[in-house]
């Protein structure tokens, strides 16, 4: 029993830590209807393309809340810089929506997609 524990405890510890370290890839995916981050940015893109600025603004409010939830989940496996990059993109996107600037909003949306792909 003792010998089993001698090997089982460190192996379990290494496996659990490794899981935590690589968990960003799947923890960023939605787990309910409050954290559908990628979908909400895609919605913003669609609203902006159709010049629906009020809807885009509403969607962005949801996006920010979703990002707060997702960032808490992935903060142990993702670097601070990546988290900060996403926050900055979302802030710039908010400003662009406020200014009804479709060009900047789309640039930020596509920057977000690239970052999202590599997040985790």
């Amino acid at each position, binding site marked *: 029993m003792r010998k089993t524990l001698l090997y089982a405890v*460190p192996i379990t*510890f*290494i496996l659990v*830590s*490794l899981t*935590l*370290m*690589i968990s*960003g890839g799947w923890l960023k995916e939605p787990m309910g209807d409050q954290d559908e981050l990628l979908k909400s940015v895609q919605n913003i893109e669609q609203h902006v393309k159709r010049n629906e600025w009020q809807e885009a603004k509403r969607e962005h409010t949801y996006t920010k809340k979703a990002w707060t939830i997702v*960032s*808490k989940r992935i*903060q*142990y*496996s*993702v*670097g*601070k*810089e*990546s*988290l*900060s990059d996403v926050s900055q993109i979302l802030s710039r996107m908010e400003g662009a929506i406020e200014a009804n600037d479709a060009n900047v909003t789309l640039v930020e949306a596509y920057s977000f997609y690239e970052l999202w792909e590599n997040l985790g």
Partner: protein
Amino acid sequence: MNETLVVIIRSVITFFTLLVYARLIGKQQIGNLTMFDYINGITIGSIAGTMATDTSSKMLNHWLALTIFIVFTLLLQITDIKNRYLSKVIDGEPVTVIEDGKILENNLMKSRLTKDELMVQLRSKNIFDLTEVEIALLEPDGTLSTLRKSEFQFVQKKDLNIQVSRAKLTTEIIVDGLLLPQNLQQRKKDLAWVQTQLDRKGIKDLKQLSYAAILPNDTLYVDLFDDHTTKTNDISDYKGPY
């Protein structure tokens, strides 16, 4: 991002990962530090430090670097055991620096050891006269091994034909009032023997004992929690508290 929480989690993971890895590497790392082992150890420590505190990048990257260093260290250790030639290439060989009392300057130069450093090493081995040295080897871990000439070697008991009993270890049998039955068995003693010994010393309860051990001559050494010491040997200069 709650950076404080992230640093706490990272530090816990790093601490226990280092503990597991240090156990994997074993005792060789401390007992036989070559220059490479030394630098390798510092690098591993540095990576671990970054892993715990550098939240700007993914923890996984640091963990991978740490794991790769440990895996290569283990591979080198296995290579050392399996292949004598590669072991010499990796760790180097002992170099003779003194032979028959004469300093071998070429070997000293190859080892990049100054005469002053050589003298320091000799003095630390209580050798103050070069002519006493038959041979001195500079080991791969930087220590000096010396063999004195026969006429300067210490007299051993067997040289004087003195009868000696077999050397034994001191075996601890009570620590902080707790009996260690496994150790008692090793020395082929039982609780009754311990009790008799304690009775002779006027000790009624095991809990009075801080430490007890069977000495090589099969007598019992005991140390009580209550030491009854005097102030005679107190070397403190000030009242304190410090």
